[in-house]
């Protein structure tokens, strides 16, 4: 009775819990920015209403329609030092945050960047400070793009004047092109004087210039900026950057290239089953063949990467490093990018640059994986090319490090051709024979045999195809090229075990053919796709398997086959060889039809594990399994 009461009470509490009105939720964080505030909730919540109140009353009262957000940007004008109350109603409850606005007036932000690595964030605290000093790093005798950026954050006209002082020894190589700038020289160095007007909020004065650093040492560049408003109020900003000039080698030591892989997946993870540094370009005849079999797209989209290369970079230093990573493919003997490797304009922004460039910020002490797309915009000639990867510190001209890797373009593969032609021949012959002799083949089969064969065919589909189909992707993701150890268990070991036991029950030519066809049909119906390419693979498989069983004597002698160790060993050898041939055919058909170029070791691994190990083991397990089966004929 007590148990029933507890159960009822528990159900009631559960019902109440799911429908109870929301209570208070954990607090939120508020960050004031020049144009309002960012509200960060502890977790994504469905927002109903947001309200901001200050001394002047309700400033923002915003209905939020139940959208799920973790961060919310609220645009309003706040005044320095004043208290504000933020009330956020969510479906989980209400959050109330009281926060004082910072003492900044946020009239303007000033950034002196030597070298210029990136625009500072709109709300980066450093740009609002009146006075800052920052370190910078440069490579000896290298040219640095530098910039002074002044951003106004308030509407209203302001005159901006100032100067950038470049110490002696540092040479100004590219002068600012802005209007009202003047450069003077004296014994202390070079001074760039500038004057401009900023009149609207977020208007930016951007003054880039280039300098050449001398030999090793430390050089202090300074900027003094004065903003004068229409009311005569002045704001002064002072910026200093002490640039440490180091040898190229020492900076290169800070950035370590841990690993580079090509071809790689979209996340930069190496596709190890394919030959490293190799692109396989299909010959036109293969493309046509692929199209005929419905595999190759009618059009190649040249704006999509052909493949990717992945770089793992480590920053062993103490500060973040902003990099441009630039990669181009050149002819082996000259620094010219072949037209086939020129990236599409969407990657180069329509400029004439023929390299792929991406950015990355390397956090200190961490490894960062960077992905670069590899484009093949037409068919390159087979041969060896050079793939050059340059790591360029943002704002500098000379690369910090440059790496060169070979790039092999292969097109014609005799082995693949041979296997494809054999597959075409065998499958066509098998299909013809099957069609011509269909009546005879079927006439020799008893109905109950066909039932048993169908059952076995269905069973091979269930134990072999289904698990691989369901878990194959997961296993491949986890084990990569070594997934064959797991998938082979289903596709070879279990499959051949069942097939051997079936043929032991019905030892006659045609048994394997029907079982394979049942499996093929089920696979097509359940998972879709009766592609012509499957006919090649299935047809070849049928011929190879029938031949193996026949040569071993099992289907030739029929009931007379002796299941002693010697005969079974011979059967295992025949089946292993047949399966090796089928595996190789499958891999080479993929190479020919799907533009995949497998590494040799991957091919060997598949043959050894799938065909030799699992198939020969399956022959013995098949015998053992069929020992327990009793066939009642009559």
């Amino acid at each position, binding site marked *: 009775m007590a148990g029933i009461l507890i159960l009822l009470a528990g*159900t009631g509490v559960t019902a109440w819990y799911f429908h109870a009105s929301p209570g208070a939720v954990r607090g939120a964080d508020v960050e004031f920015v020049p144009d309002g505030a960012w509200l960060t909730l502890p977790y994504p919540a469905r927002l109903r209403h947001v309200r901001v109140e200050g001394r002047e009353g309700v400033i923002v009262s915003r209905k939020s329609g139940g959208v799920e957000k973790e961060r919310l940007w609220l645009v309003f004008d706040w005044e320095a030092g004043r208290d504000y109350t933020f009330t956020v109603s969510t479906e989980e409850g209400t959050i109330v945050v009281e926060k004082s606005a910072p003492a900044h007036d946020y009239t303007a932000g000033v950034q002196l960047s030597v070298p210029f690595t990136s625009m500072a964030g709109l709300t980066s605290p450093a740009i609002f400070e009146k006075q800052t000093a920052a370190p910078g790093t440069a490579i000896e005798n290298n040219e640095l793009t530098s910039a002074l950026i002044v951003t106004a954050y308030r509407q209203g006209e302001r005159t901006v004047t100032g100067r950038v002082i470049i110490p002696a020894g540092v040479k100004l190589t590219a002068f600012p092109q802005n209007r009202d700038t003047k450069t003077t020289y004296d014994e202390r160095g070079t001074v760039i004087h500038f004057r401009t007007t900023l009149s*609207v909020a977020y208007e930016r004065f951007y003054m880039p210039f280039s300098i050449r650093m001398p030999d090793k040492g430390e050089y202090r560049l300074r900027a003094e900026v004065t903003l004068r408003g229409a009311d005569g109020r002045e704001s002064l900003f002072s910026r200093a950057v002490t640039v440490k000039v180091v040898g190229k080698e020492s900076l290169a030591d800070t950035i370590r290239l841990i690993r580079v892989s090509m071809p790689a997946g979209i996340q930069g993870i190496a596709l190890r089953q394919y030959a490293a540094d190799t692109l396989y370009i299909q010959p036109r005849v293969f493309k046509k063949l692929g199209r005929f079999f419905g595999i190759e797209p009618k059009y190649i989209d040249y704006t999509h990467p052909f493949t990717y290369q992945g770089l793992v970079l480590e920053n062993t230093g103490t500060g973040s490093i902003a990099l441009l990573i630039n990669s181009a493919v050149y002819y082996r003997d000259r620094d010219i990018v072949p037209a086939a490797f020129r990236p599409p304009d969407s990657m180069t922004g*329509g*400029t004439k640059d023929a390299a792929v460039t991406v950015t990355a*910020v390397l956090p200190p002490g961490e490894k960062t*994986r960077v992905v670069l797309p590899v484009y093949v915009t037409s068919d390159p000639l087979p041969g060896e090319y050079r793939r050059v990867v340059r790591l360029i510190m943002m704002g500098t*001209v000379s690369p910090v490090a440059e790496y060169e890797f070979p790039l092999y373009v292969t097109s014609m593969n005799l082995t693949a051709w041979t296997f494809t032609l054999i597959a075409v021949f065998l499958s066509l012959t098998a299909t013809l024979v099957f069609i011509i002799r269909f009546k005879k083949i079927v006439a020799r089969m008893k109905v109950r045999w066909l039932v048993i064969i169908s059952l076995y065919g269905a069973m091979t589909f269930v134990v072999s195809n289904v698990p691989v189909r369901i878990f194959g992707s997961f296993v491949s993701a986890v084990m990569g090229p070594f997934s064959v150890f797991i998938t082979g268990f289903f596709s070879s070991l279990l499959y051949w075990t069942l097939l051997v036991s079936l043929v032991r029950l019905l030892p006659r030519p045609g048994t394997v053919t029907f079982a394979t066809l049942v499996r093929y049909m089920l696979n097509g119906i359940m998972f879709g796709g009766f592609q012509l390419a499957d006919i090649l693979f299935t047809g070849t498989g049928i011929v190879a398997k029938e031949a193996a069983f026949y040569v071993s004597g099992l289907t030739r002698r029929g009931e007379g086959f002796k299941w002693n160790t010697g005969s079974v060993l011979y059967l295992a050898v025949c089946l292993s060889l047949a399966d090796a041939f089928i595996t190789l055919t499958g891999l080479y058909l993929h190479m020919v039809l799907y533009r995949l170029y497998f590494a040799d070791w991957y091919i060997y691994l598949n043959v050894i594990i799938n065909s030799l190990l699992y198939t020969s083991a399956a022959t013995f397990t098949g015998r053992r399994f069929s020992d327990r089966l009793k066939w009642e004929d009559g």
Partner: protein
Amino acid sequence: MRRVLLCMLVLLFVVPGCMKKEARMQAYFVRGGLAVELPGITTATVLSEGTVVFRWQKGVEDKGAVLFGGDKLFLPVEWSAGEKYSVEARNRDSRSAVEVTAPLKPSPMLIHRVQLEDVIPFSIDQGTAPDTFVKFSGDNRYLAIGSFHGYLRVVDVKTGRVILSKKIAEGMVKRIGWGKIDGQRVLYAGEQSPDGYIYCLDAMTGTELWKYRLADDIETSRPERENDRYAVYKFPGVYRLKVLPGGDVVIVGTHGWDIEGRRRYRCMVYRFDGRTGRIKWRWPADRTLPYGLTWFDISDDGGRLLLLTSTWRPPGQSDPVYENGTLYCLSGDTGAVLWEYRVPPLRPYYERATAWQGVALSADGRYAVIGLNDGRGMFFDTRRAVSVKGRRFPQNSPLWVKEIGTPVLIGDIPVSSPVSYAGAGREEVYFVLPGTSIPSGAVKGKVRKPAPHPAAGQLYAFGLDGRLRWKWKSYGSMQGIYLSGDSRWLFTVNALAGMAGSRRGGRTSTFGVTLFDTSGRGPETGKPVYLYPTEGPVFFMADISEDGRYIALVEVPFADENGIQKGSYRVHIIH
């Protein structure tokens, strides 16, 4: 035991039933009025300092009030910041009252959300946002939606009811325009598909009145593989469609595809008789143009049409008369070229001038503005063209040029910020620069990606004299410029940079819409009226009703760096 289980079931249903909360009224301040939300609302009264300022009763004269879907009411109350108001409302079951204080700025008001088909979310590295088009009818009563999977929907803005949902295209419904034939509302819908049809349909029933197959002129191409989500963009399509006051329809048919590694274009501008589908003129008249045409603009009276021929790559063919990378101003009445401007490439970085949707004309057709992919913005007086000896057409040149997003050399690598969108208001012209030309390659998204160009992610508003009037910097990637009929209301959407890879490290918290009141002066100039947040990114094609009252935006599902889906495929109608 059965009884116990029965009791448990009863508890599960009865307890929540007993705890059902009374629907609470909500009142908040919106543009030009007050919004009141109460299910089944029948009356509403707004009082200020004890005086009734507005009274509304369902079924009685609305006095400008609008009831949306039976539970959201817009009351046209002129409110002042800081003032207190009492709002009383009733529905069939209850009476509610609430005191509200007017804030400094209005809140967005969500009117309806219309769920569209299921689509696969695009992600940091893969796929593209489902191309979708929305268009309000001229009287703001209906919203037409053309979806990625070829569906055409018509939504009643007041009730939110979908009154027409019909699959019309094998590909996607790319552009839509509203018109009227003998008082009957019609829709012109241009598709992107192997056939590239433009249809004229009865807007209420979807009955086809006429159609024209663009592929007969600009060719077709065979379908690509099934799983290529970009495949549809290789088909012929209607890339721009405008309905003129007299009922005629002007469209551009664009077809760009690859053959053996070379890009081929076949494009043509048409003016159709909206009633019959008869072609009034074509440009070029007797052949297709071997250059790309992605956008055009036409003056309100249809008298002038502006377009820019452009191709990213060198065109495989050239036209004997028309040039690539050239701005043409056509007569909207005849299709004749009024003037041309051969845009000089920004050397040494660029070999051609190209544009995306950065082509705009002022409503009266007097001024033209273009935004180029090389980062330049240009402003023209369309009446300033002069005849030049040796040139077939009169020549024009810009009144001013702004190098807003032109390449900045980072080391020796040029980084630009394309001016992807341009707009022309009455007294101002606008440019939007969504991002930079170099994407981030870092797989980890926790570090802020470098933003090397100082103009990226910004909206610029210049006076006709070329003086910068105001600008706005978004934390995300701003896209599109949408202006109300009187050019007072302007909005942009926040999405992610379009290029796969450049989406890495992008901020997802800024998705939504930013609305500006361009009539503002003084310190409020350039400050948004409001930000309307969405869960997923907003597609760059959106619409604002002619009177500026309603905004329609398309939210698209997106899988972030952790594979978490944000947002869904739906249209928001907001005020």
